[in-house]
């Protein structure tokens, strides 16, 4: 706390702590920054001292039709996944918010558990199952699998928002003559709008960086992160860095957009009103 009594403060301890925080952030950012740097390094196998400056890897990436196709798949999958996950997540969040029923614990477990299953296992189980029902091997399979792991995130984000909603807001709408559907359209959804947008972005970002499950189920229609895995396993090429930097910038943009939409000052102000 900034207002702490200086007599209760030890500058040495505080200084050491802050230094440690700086080191921790260095640790977190070292690999990210290094990959940026190496994405402009001319050598195929990065090592120091650095080779010359080069945008070769970006050019290689940009001229690789497979990368573009991967990007197209990723975007397609990302958009569809975010929409479906958000719809499912909204429904589940609303169910949890509004209803009580026998087996609700199980319902919630189903809705929230998938992200805790290791991706290798999820990927394996998904592939084994989807292939039995002839769904594996294309973008649809990736969409199905990603929705399974993304919808819990959407649910969490929207549930959080719903818990900020005055529980009498919806009954108030009914009481004023709105049917359940009208109240949903005119009250619940408008109230949740920032969280719905947030959920769309978060789920898109998760799908955007998921490679393990997608590797198993994507078949021929690989997404970009699966390509990256391929580059890492099959070629070791600084293209990884170029793609990584690109994906990073893209997801960051999504994140910042989400942040702006969620944290819009007048959205928070409105919230306080209820």
């Amino acid at each position, binding site marked *: 706390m900034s207002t702490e009594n200086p007599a209760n403060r030890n500058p040495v301890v505080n200084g050491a702590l802050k230094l440690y925080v700086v080191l921790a952030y260095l640790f977190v950012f070292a690999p990210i920054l290094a990959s940026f740097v190496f994405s402009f390094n001319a050598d195929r196998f990065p090592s120091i001292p650095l080779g010359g400056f080069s945008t070769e890897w970006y050019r290689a990436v940009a001229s690789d039709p497979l990368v573009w196709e991967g990007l197209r798949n990723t975007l397609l999958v990302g958009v569809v996944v975010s929409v479906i996950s958000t719809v499912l997540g909204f429904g589940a969040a609303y169910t949890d918010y509004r209803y009580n029923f026998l087996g609700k614990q199980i319902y919630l477990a189903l809705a929230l558990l998938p992200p805790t299953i290791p991706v290798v296992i999820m990927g394996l189980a998904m592939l084994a199952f989807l292939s039995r029902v002839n769904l594996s091997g294309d973008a649809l399979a990736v969409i199905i699998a990603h929705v399974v792991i993304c919808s819990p995130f959407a649910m969490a984000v929207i549930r959080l928002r719903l818990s900020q909603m*005055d529980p*009498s*807001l919806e*009954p*108030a*709408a*009914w*009481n*004023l*003559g*709105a*049917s*359940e559907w*009208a109240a949903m359209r*005119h*009250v619940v959804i*408008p*109230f949740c*709008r920032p969280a719905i947008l947030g959920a769309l972005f978060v789920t898109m970002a998760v799908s955007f960086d998921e490679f393990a499950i997608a590797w198993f189920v994507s078949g021929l229609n690989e997404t970009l992160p699966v390509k990256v895995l391929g580059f890492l396993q099959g070629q070791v090429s600084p293209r990884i860095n170029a793609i990584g930097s690109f994906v990073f910038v893209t997801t960051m943009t999504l994140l910042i957009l989400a942040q702006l939409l969620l944290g819009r000052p*007048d959205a928070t*102000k*409105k*919230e*306080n*009103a*209820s």
Partner: protein
Amino acid sequence: MTQDPLVSFEGVAKRFGTYTAVQKMDLDIRQGEFLALMGSSGCGKTTTLRMLAGLEAPSEGIIRLSGKPINDLPSWSRDTPMVWQSLALFPFLSVIENVEFALKMRGMGRAERRARAEQWLDRMQIAEFADRNISQLSGGQRQRVALARSLVVEPQILLLDEPLSALDAALKVRMQSVLKQLQRETGITFVYVTHSQSEAFSMADRVVIMSRGRIEQIGTPQEIYRTPRTRFVADFLGSSNIFPGTLQADAQGRAAIATDSGTFLLDGQHGAAGQAASLTVLDTRMQVHEQRPAPGVNAVEARMIGEEFTGATATLYFETPRGQEIRVQKSHEDLADLSVAMGRSFHLSWSPADSHLVHE
């Protein structure tokens, strides 16, 4: 008073699982009256209101509005608008959009509903805030928006669930008179749930006191204050001292009640001797003496154990040797003559005329 009731609850009960929130309630609400529902927390006031608004279904019994049973009508098909304690204003709509909401849901055209809403904003003196965000209003202004939002459909009845409890004291008093005046002018029946005795008593035509899902007493504020019908009501109002005991006649054959703290004379009230009952005495009607008072009044000796200072009056707390707590409320002027001190013994007295009898 012989006119048909606007609302009637006929044997209405509400259970949540095994818990009974409202027990077989019979209640008539008259056209145009201001009815207050009071009772301790959890006694079923809100549940009663919500059943009327169609937000809970009665487990048993029939609710009628203007004679017609409405049990099966969904909430949105009833004209029973409600004002919530939290107000439940729509934070994403402007003031006027809030007020228009009910009209929009009824399918009224844009121009017409805007006009109607503006008229009510005017009436509630908040027209200047029409385009503001709810968050930009003060508590009192929000209260008015909530009222306008419910009244805009010009209902026969308005339900209010502790609508003032979130306001500060001064604003509360001001809104009370706004509400009272509004009710008089519009003639709309108000059903008003409150925790506050002062609110209920100063606004309502009739007050319903509930306890554990049952109605304990219905009556005008005066009736209830002066003659609580049950021990619970006396306890709840908190303005009476209560002495549980057994009815008997005293040596002279006068009606009396034998309690733990002594035998006290009653004033013409009775029941069969030997019957259990409680004597209640308003705390403003008790006198404090340093010396034993003359006979003819009821008196008891007690040790002072506490004092509460509330500006105009002070409340003194005493305890009889038998452990009964007695409260006395006095003005500071009255007390000036006494050397009150914690732990000292005093004589407390009251006239038989101020004795009132309640049964369990």
